[in-house]
Each structure stands twice: as C-alpha cells, then as structure tokens.
C-alpha cells in the first residue's frame, strides 16, 4: 500500500472526496492518482474485454489512468479525466472500473 512521506513535508488541512461512493481524506495539491493509490484502488478504466487499466506514465501521456470525475459546483456530467493530471478538490466524485465504451 502507498504511503505519504511525512518527514520535511508540510501539507494543508485535508479535504474530502468520494471514490466509488466511499469518502476519502486527501490534501490540497494531491492528484486523483495519488488518492487512488492511497485508497488502494489502483484500477482506473476497464477495457472492452474487461481488463483493468491503471496508472502507468504518471505524466499525462499514456491515458491509462482515465477515470470518471465529477467536480462539485460544476453542473456538468462526469468526464473522463486523467487521474495523474487532475488535482483533487472538495466534494469531487471519482468512479473507477467503468468501461471506456460506456457513456458516462
């Protein structure tokens, strides 16, 4: 399981997001990818064949960490976003394991 490095690191007070319906505490500045690792939920989207895809490049080029994200306050429907490039925000909702071919 992943862990935060604490020595010499100062984080701001935590905020709440929801991953697959479960409340998770994270810190401002953390990415959705970091939140997934800390929550032990590494599967991101699922292929048509039912294979899980997960974090790979962690720099926005492979697109394997796509998850369905809704941002609180924005009235839009959830969007596929790269977990590694998306910073967490209060009230954000993340859905993992969805098939990429499904409509969100």
């Amino acid at each position, binding site marked *: 399981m*992943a862990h935060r490095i604490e020595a010499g690191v100062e984080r701001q007070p935590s905020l709440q997001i929801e991953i697959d319906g479960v409340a998770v505490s994270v810190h401002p500045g953390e990415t959705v990818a970091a939140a997934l*690792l800390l929550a032990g939920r590494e599967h991101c989207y699922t292929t048509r064949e039912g294979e899980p895809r997960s974090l790979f490049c962690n720099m926005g080029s492979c697109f394997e960490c796509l998850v369905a994200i809704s941002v609180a306050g924005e009235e839009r429907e959830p969007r596929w976003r790269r977990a590694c490039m998306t910073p967490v925000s209060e009230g954000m909702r993340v859905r993992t394991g969805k098939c990429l071919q499904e409509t969100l």
Partner: protein
Amino acid sequence: MRPVDLAIVGAGPAGMAAALTAVAHGLRVVVIDEQQQAGGQILRQPPAAIRVRNWLRDRVYRRQQQLLQRAQQDSRIEWCWQTTVLGFLDRDPHDPTSQRLWLHGPEGTRELAARSVLVAAGCHDLAVPFPGWNLPGVMATGGLQAMVKSQQLVPGKRFVLAGSHPLQLIVADQIHRGGGEVAAVLFAQPLGAMLGVRKRPLLMLRHLSKLLHIGGVMWRLWRAGIPVRFGSTVVAAEGERQLAAVRVARLRDGVFEPQQTREEIACDHLGVCYSFLVASELPRQAGAAVSWSAERGGWIVDVDGWQRSSVAGLYAAGETTGVAGADVAREEGELAALAVLLDQGVLDAARAEKMAAPVRRRLASLREFAAVLAQISLPPWRVFEQLLTDSTTLCKCQGISVGQFGDLLQEHSSIATANSAKLRSRTGMGLCQGRYCGYFVTRLLARHGDISEAEVGPFSARSPVKPVPIADILAREREQG
C-alpha cells in the same frame, strides 16, 4: 487577437531557458505546459499546496534549480498551466505568417496565435512490452519517480525496477529514502557494457559531478542492502488483476536463461525503464521532417544548427530533437530563442552568431556525454525480441498482441509502413495515439520487411494529438455561435 511573438510548448529546461532569453529581448512569450508549475519532468515540483524542505538539493540539480528560480521569478513570461496543445490548426489566410495552436485546459478549448512556436515537449519512458506488462502495478519508472518527487508519496510497499537506464538507480534511492522497500534493481546489460565509459576518461572527467552523483547513489543502495544486478531482467509480470510478483531471467550474451531456472520476486509495483521516447507528435502533425534514432528516442525532429525545424517559424529543442538530458535541453532552448530573435529581426546575424557561439561550445561537450550515455543505456534488439512473445500485448489501448500483429503481417504482404499497419491492426489508434507502441511497431516492421525504419515511417500524427472530451469542443463551438 494579436499573435504573441513566441509560444513555447513545454516548461522544462529547454522551454524555461528559451523563455528567459526571448523576454530579455522584449518578445512577448507564452509558455504552455500540462503540469501546474515550471520545471518539466526533471524538476517536477511538488504542488504549491505541499511544502517540502530541501527539495532536490543535490549538487547535480543546482544549475537546473537556478534556471527554475530565474524563470519563475521573471514576471515578463506568461504561463499557461494545465493546458494541452492539441495541435496546429490551419493558418489564417489573412495572416499566413502566424501559426495557430489549439489548446485544451481547465476552461475548455481555445486558440492561440503565435508568430513563432518552439516545441520543447520532452520525452516519456520507453516501455518495452513483455508478458503481463498490462497488469495494474506495472508502471513506467519515471511515473514512480514523479509520485515520490512531486506528490511526496511512495506509491507501493515493495518495488522492483527493471530496464537498462541509469535513472533506475536514482529512483531506487528516492523510493528507499521515502520509506519504500526496493527488492531489486535489474539492468539487462552486463556491467561491462556500462563500464564502457572508462574508454572516455577526459569526457567523463568533464562531467564528473554526474558520475559522483551516481556513485553516491550506488553507495547508499549498497549500504541499504538493495541488490543491483547486471545482466538480468524481468521477463514476466504475474498476478490476478494486480501485480503480485515478477519472473526474472539472467542473460548471457543477450540470451535469456531457460525457463526452469528463472527466479520469482514478490512485489506490488514494478518500474520499467529502458531509455526514453521523444514527444515529437506536435512537430510531426505540423509537417516537420523527422529522422529515426533507436537509441535517442525513436522519431526525432530534424533541426538545423539554430534548432529550426523544416517548417517555417517552428523550432524544436530538448528531448524532442533526440533524448540527451536536461543540460543539453537548456542550451538548445537558449539557442532556439536566439534563432527566433534572429529570424524575427530583433538580432542581426553577427550579434546572434556571437551570442550563439558559447552556447554551441557548451553543447558540443554535453552532447558528446549524452551520446555515450545513450549508447550504454539501450540494450540490443535481441533482448527486446525475447520479451515480445506472441502473447505479449503490443498495443495496450486497443488490446492487440504481438502474435496477432505478426499474423496480420503474414496475411497482408502489402503492409510495409507504420500507417498501413495501423489501418489493418488498429495499433496506434487508441488513447495514447501510438506514443508507446509506435516505437515497436516501427522496429518490428523494419525487421519483418528487411527495410529501414525510415522506409517504415512513423504513424501520421493527427490533431488532436491527445484525446479531448468532445463535450469540451462542442461547448466552445456553442460559445462562438
């Protein structure tokens, strides 16, 4: 909208150096990057909300850190964060000298017009396909490192690193210092191949600080009891929907030992790093000429002595022109900015030449060092060939195996180019747009047809070069009526 003088894609060493030089001569410069801050991957900073004491203070980073501080403090540079350049749009017929970039950021899509464009988009890990590499838990080593360096998070409990690039040592050290367990660091090449650097003592002496840094890292790994093995690599990742262990084989003359003697190492995360691939899709989409280099990152952008690409007004610097590291990138960025100033008439030829001379002198030595490093960092093709078994997934996005791809080549003798292979097999049509499989598709085709990689050619890069939610494009269309 008046075009900006210079748009720079990428806020790494090349982009930062170019921006500083260009604004110092009065140009209006916009730097676009997908991250939230400057630094690129080499100095991937922690987010502003996470404060880290003594972040990357090792001596080897000093010059890059100075560049970062100068760039961040320069209020003349306009930054455009969390923004992807999706492509070059057709030029405006009323203003044919300007280029139009199509951007996607948190606010949706928009356009940016620029008189000159510098692409300094960096590189990503060369991920060699092998059985099981599509299991969650298998990551690019650079991706593991970014978690530690930027997010200040150790992304697992027990790690194995496998590949051939010296970066592996640095990442093992960072994971260990962050409190992760590193079970093994494996180099496919024999130690002798790495020690080839001894043949260039003077060159190595000039780059002593880098060697000392690696020496210090090796010492810490040794003291921590972390095994670093040469002539050995991961040949399979195993686990049920999540990585649980890796299978390791020793190599003799580049040939894997037989199945029965292969060792198993338990781990929850594996980092793979066999060198790097350049991000050249944007210049390619713009029509810039490229050349093939197996050890410098695949399809690299052709540039002249001023970092000009074959497209008027389009420049390239840093890894995009061939992987050579952050120090080379910084100098090339500076050179590209001088070229822009020369071409826009801000500097006359004599002045530009004079300013470029010391940059070129530094570049010569740095490039020589980078070439040696590139040479020792990439194993011969036969090592990859053994990893690319029939059942190995070649294209993860579309789920195509090496065997399926090979069958198609047998069936359709007309397939010779990467583009024809893409049409038949769908490799390169998925989310990553061939950024990962393209290198292997090219090399496999060259071998299959007994032709050069230049004849195989790259996948055509199309705009958008990265996926974008169609709703974001529609929202923009609606806004504009």
